[in-house]
């Protein structure tokens, strides 16, 4: 899923200073699962803002909404009838959702309520970790199902570097060395021959470096 973290409330309040009539918009997708932008978080954030503004003697009216997905036009369109009645939308969906609202509602300012994080997994309740950078050219079949681009701090294709000590990355004692994980797994799978091969230079054009990406499925376009 796409993960995120709430922006500090001070930053949110500063963004909202020019406004006294807004929408706080959540999303039932990924950000609900990682508990940063769902219906419940909309309620909590809206209440916090109201209280803060009341305390500051500068009341604000907030409409609370939660869309099924902010990244899908059919759900986004459901906001159209009323979005013009408000000065701004504070979205706590991921960056994609926030931008999709912005491009659909061209005259309404869109404000980000969260910092979008990464494509990751729930390692345990309350802890998420990155697994994929969406580079567009997957090599997991060669690396024991562990991504060198994401899991190695230097995205090495022939790791580990000299900074790998007892399975820990030199960058942070909380980070496991991605290449130690890859090697352990290749050994367990009996696929160490994959290690001994020189891999071609990665083509980054399928990643962000090629410019904003697009997927077109002709079979699905009506």
């Amino acid at each position, binding site marked *: 899923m796409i993960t995120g973290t709430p922006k500090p409330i001070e930053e949110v309040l500063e963004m909202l200073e020019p406004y006294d009539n807004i929408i706080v918009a959540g999303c039932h997708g990924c950000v609900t699962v990682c508990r940063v932008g769902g219906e419940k978080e909309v309620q909590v954030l809206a209440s916090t803002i109201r209280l803060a503004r009341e305390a500051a003697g500068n009341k604000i009216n907030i409409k609370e909404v939660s869309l099924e997905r902010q990244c899908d036009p059919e759900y986004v369109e459901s906001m159209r009838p009323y979005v013009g009645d408000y000065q701004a939308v504070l979205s706590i969906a991921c960056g994609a959702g926030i931008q999709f609202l912005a491009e659909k509602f061209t005259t309404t300012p869109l404000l980000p309520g969260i910092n979008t994080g990464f494509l990751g997994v729930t390692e345990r309740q309350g802890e998420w970790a990155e697994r994929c950078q969406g580079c567009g050219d997957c090599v997991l079949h060669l690396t024991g199902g562990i991504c060198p681009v994401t899991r190695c701090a230097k995205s090495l*294709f*022939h790791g580990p570097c000299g900074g*790998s000590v007892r399975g820990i990355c030199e960058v942070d004692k909380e980070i496991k060395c991605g290449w130690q994980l890859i090697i352990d797994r290749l050994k367990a799978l009996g696929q160490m021959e994959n290690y001994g091969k020189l891999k071609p230079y990665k083509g980054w054009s399928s990643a962000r470096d090629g410019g904003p990406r697009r997927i077109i499925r002709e079979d699905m376009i009506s």
Partner: protein
Amino acid sequence: MKSGSNLEKVLAAGHFSVTAECGPPRGADPEIVRKKAAFVRGHVDACNVTDNQTAMVRMSSLAGCMLIKEQGIEPLIQMVVRDRNRIALQSDLLGASALGVRNLLCLSGDHQKFGDDPQAKNVFDIDSMQLIHLVRTMRDEGVFPSGDKLEGAPQFFIGCAVNPFADPFEIRVPRLKLKIDAGADFVQTQCIYNMDKFKKYMEDARKEGLHEKVKILAGVTPLKSAGMAKFMRRMVAGMDIPEAVIERIAAEPKDKQAAKGIEMCIEQIEELKEVEGVAGVHVMAIEWEEKLEEIIGGAGLLPRPVLV
């Protein structure tokens, strides 16, 4: 000869080779480099010039190489893939070769988190293994990796670094083999203090015949004090300094520890000379270049051979 560098010639002639390193200054003052160069000249076959090591911003390696070259020292340019994509790497390789740099060390580079600018974006477009391959392609095939013909191929004696002490240990020799397959001509190792582990590494390398395919220069760094040894062990990932080494230098009074460090370094070089497959030493006297003559001379490695 692949590059015609002095280092390549010395090694090809079967001499036990010596390299050292100069860290460029944290500023634009060329005199600092010239002063260091004066301590290096005549004592080495080539001198590494580091490339923003520990991600601290310094004068560029290429500029440092030119400054020491003017002082009559053969430069060895270090190049990390942390800060440059393949376009910049190729361009700098061409420039360095055009300016007469003939030795190259291909490195990943320390992560930017350790340096001045931990907020910097890192590059790592290709890794150090692929940089070796890229240089070899340019040198031997006379083409860019894109396939276009070069207007003059760069001439480099291609080096790589290895850390025999990082984990997992069992991957260290296979990883060296990969670097050789990619095109490495020589290797400089991480500072060695754990001689037993290094000898085991060399034994494994010899089993694969790697010492016959690549020139292995064993890295040493003289300890200035017991404090420095403890600091390095604590702060540098993959730095293996056995307790016995620290105890030996710590047993000396503080004012005699530096001399002891040099004595231990010389002893170690003597021991390394006897290890089959070790073709030379890389003496990293960090901010202590003035001791190079004493160390290298003390190990019986002066004067350096002069080859034409």
